[in-house]
């Protein structure tokens, strides 16, 4: 079995400003495969909380569009997760 690759998977950091925006994330989690980094499940997402999640390349555009549409504050913490996975081994020798 080949290892899972994360080419162009993105990690979003969003901060819902109110309950309506928190609901948007809940809805996105129902319709997309979001890997929550912080908090660890959708159940803990609340207004004014910083939320980090990973999303595949395929789902990124629709997520980004939904965040834009709801005027949610967000940033893309990681643009290409696979690149970061390879970059974590940055010590050549001890």
């Amino acid at each position, binding site marked *: 079995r080949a*290892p899972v690759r*994360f080419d162009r998977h993105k990690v979003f950091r969003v901060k819902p400003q109110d309950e309506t925006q928190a609901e948007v994330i809940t809805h996105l989690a129902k319709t997309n495969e979001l890997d929550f980094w912080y908090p660890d499940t959708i159940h803990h997402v609340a207004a004014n909380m910083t939320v980090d999640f990973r999303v595949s390349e395929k789902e990124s555009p629709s997520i980004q569009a939904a965040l834009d549409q709801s005027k949610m504050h967000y940033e893309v913490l990681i643009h290409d*997760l696979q690149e970061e996975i390879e970059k974590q081994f940055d010590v050549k020798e001890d």
Partner: protein
Amino acid sequence: SPGRHSYAKYNNWDKIVAWTEKMVKKRPEMVSRIKIGSTIEDNPLYVLKIGKEHKGRKAIFMDCGIHAREWVSPAFCQWFVYQATKSYGKNKIMTKLLDQMNFYVLPVFNVDGYIWSWTQNRMWRKNRSKHHNSTCIGTDLNRNFDASWGASQSSHNPCKETYPGTAPESEKETAAVADFIRSHLESIKAYLTFHSYSQMLLFPYGYTSKLPPNYQELDKVAKIGAEALSSRYEAHYIYGPIASTIYPTSGSSLDWAYELGIKYTFAFELRDRGKFGFLLPESRIKPTCKETMLAVKFIAKYILRNAS
């Protein structure tokens, strides 16, 4: 040969096993390896006991790598063992600690998951247990302890990342750790568990917003621990009870150990706060471990002096 182990790099499971053997051979008077159980995939669960053989000593139990993808956590446990043994006889505080107490260090709690995160899926979190009527794999070991197990909103769907298992201690890893701690309860005065991501120093409770009876003392220790963490590289750690500081959880090892009677239980969420997340570069392992060491030494000193 599994290849060369390095404290400045992430080490796969084979290297960690070989390293445990090496530590015992190198310092037999101070390090011993105890097999406390095995995993569903039949990998051994090893605890390293650091300290000299004396009965009736206080002890601290530490575990790392309960969540597979949090790689800096096992790196810290290895760093701790190395520093403790290396600085014995040279560093005044560590010498005093090891002269008077023992440390039980479980360098990788979720061995199967850790191996999976190295070989198949870097983002894997749970263990690798199979479930009836589901093709989804794995249980979140930090939801599998008998502390208000299954009570939070964490789904009972095995496909979810926080699936708590079929029952408290349903997982071999959880049962092995719980049995070991129960059988050494007389000596274990503190329980420390190391996670990564978000830079926090947490204490009970996670399953309720109620504060523990010795809240003020835990808060004081955590405050100074957080100050120690920031003293070297100015890494900002926040501290407090799990439920209000991070988010509510049920079935956590920290709450379980506390309710078992270990009155000093702390969870470290190590670096970083989101820039790298679970992919902390190896070049940050050393600073992370160095600052964490300061907090652990402070807590250990406090336990030695104050825990009864």
